[in-house]
């Protein structure tokens, strides 16, 4: 979908009146505020993607399909291009110097790297969940409200509902409801990581991209996050880059094994872990290299 930059007729809504009537009728649902059309959701398709950073080829002819409502784990030794693949799904590579991208990434049938694509609304569909929790420098409340505010929801009552809904969704509401307006940086690391997840979910993504989301956490917190993922996969497609094979074993439905910038093998978790076809995969799973 392309949004014309200068719409000739911009109708100005009197937003506050409108919001009030909607609220009174009870129309507002915090998890369907952007009216996302469920019938059109589909998977991410990566076709012949080549990424080079400063003349080094990081991804070589990568093709993959990421299914909806499944947990896809990308595994492989460090430096094999896992994180780069993840970032290229979101076009976050735009902000690194010397990056050249060739190939296609299709999100819901929309070509990501085509010229003139309006990236912000595609990014909204993909929640990024980074290695170290990265709360924004503001209060807990504002962290979650931030995404909604930039996408045009400013009504205080609605925001309250959204914040509450998503904090409950990640099981943080009971822990922080007394101190919603304290800086997010004062929470524990595990709490911060869940806050980041809630913040990402609040803009109603369809995909969750997680880059070693549990590697900075203690075992208990990472268990909480894993459980959350298992719950979330009923509604979202989750892509998880992970170092720990055991984690992949526990939660993956679908596994992509990468080595030296190439996809060696991809398939359902059962197939990869029980019956790997390629020699490299067998060696990696056996712990010959890591």
């Amino acid at each position: 979908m392309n949004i014309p930059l200068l719409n000739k007729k911009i109708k100005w809504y009197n937003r506050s009146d409108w919001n009030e009537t909607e609220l009174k009728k009870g129309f507002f649902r915090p998890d369907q505020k952007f009216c996302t059309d469920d019938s059109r959701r589909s998977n991410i398709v990566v076709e012949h993607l080549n990424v080079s950073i400063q003349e080094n080829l990081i991804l070589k002819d990568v093709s993959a399909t990421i299914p909806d409502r499944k947990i896809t784990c990308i595994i492989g030794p460090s430096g094999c291009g896992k994180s780069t693949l993840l970032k290229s799904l979101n076009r976050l590579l735009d902000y690194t110097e010397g990056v050249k991208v060739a190939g296609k990434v299709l999100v819901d049938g929309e070509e990501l790297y085509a010229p003139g694509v309006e990236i912000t609304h595609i990014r909204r569909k993909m929640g990024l969940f980074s290695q170290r929790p990265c709360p924004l420098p503001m209060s807990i409340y504002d962290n979650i409200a931030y995404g909604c505010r930039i996408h045009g929801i400013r009504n205080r009552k609605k925001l309250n509902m959204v914040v509450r809904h998503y904090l409950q969704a990640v099981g943080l509401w009971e822990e922080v409801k007394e101190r919603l307006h304290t800086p997010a940086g004062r929470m524990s690391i595990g709490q911060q990581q869940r806050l980041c997840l809630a913040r990402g979910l609040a803009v109603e993504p369809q995909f969750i991209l997680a880059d070693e989301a549990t590697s900075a956490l203690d075992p208990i917190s990472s268990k909480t996050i894993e459980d959350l993922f298992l719950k979330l996969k009923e509604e979202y497609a989750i892509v998880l880059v992970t170092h720990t094979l055991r984690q992949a074993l526990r939660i993956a439905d679908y596994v992509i094994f990468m080595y030296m910038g190439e996809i060696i093998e991809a398939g359902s978790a059962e197939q990869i872990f029980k019956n790997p076809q390629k020699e490299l995969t067998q060696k990696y799973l056996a712990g010959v290299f890591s």
Partner: protein
Amino acid sequence: MNTTGEECKIAQKTSGIRLLKDKMAGSVMLTFTLVSVLLVVLIGIGLMIKSMPILHEKSLWELLCTSKWKPMRGDFGFLPFILGSLWVTIIAIIWTLPVALFTAIFLTENSRTWVKKIVFPALDILAGLPSVVYGVWGILVIVPWISDWLAPHFVEYSTGYSTLAAGIVLGIMILPLLISLFVELFSSVPRELREASLSLGATRWQTTKYVLLKRTFPGIVASVTLAISRAMGETIAVLMVCGNIVQLPESLFDGCYPLPALIANNYGEMLSLPLYESALMLAALILFVVVFVFNIVSRLILRKLEQKLM
């Protein structure tokens, strides 16, 4: 995304406005950046145009290498001023370099945290003091010290307003800059390198001497270059203690007349003589070129080194 709800329409409309805002903010910022970068070019060209008249009259070589300064008669010899600037700067660097080097080594290699907690604020104060204050201090402390204590050992008479006084005051002014550059340089050397040397049985000083100083030598050169360019342009403090006498300095206890002092003392008053104004602009141009070249050279060295150490 479908477009059934009203809210979706709002989201789409605002999305257009948001992107427009993003683009516009970007181009406004780019304009500001370009304009401020162009200031360098602008200053260079402005000074060049203004100093053209005198360059038409006389050759650059003649201007730079003669020492006769009689503006009323049309003699413009810059040599005394250039030598004055050089001498003051050299004296300043000669005595501050070892002081800054040892202090920086002390701060990065040998000292405890509480020492740093006292020394760094002191350096901040030193860096923040206005140059006029340095000048006042120079007049009250350094000048009498030279004329009453130091000079009698060497020459018959000195007022104290001298090349040496200017060098000392200038040195103290660039001291905090040098120390902070050195500290930054030394902290960028990885810890493992030092540990490798220490574990071979070297003493701390040997480690410093053979590992740290050797490794950061280009950086030290670059830092000194930077400090020199800063020192060359310092005006008021030097002007207050240097004596302002147009002569080729023969001893450290004689007065001198650096380039910035020349501009500061005469510019604005002597505009009735077009050639004189042009000469002063040439002095500013010389300063500009020196600073420009020194800055670029040292920054490039520092950047290369930074990449190497990373």
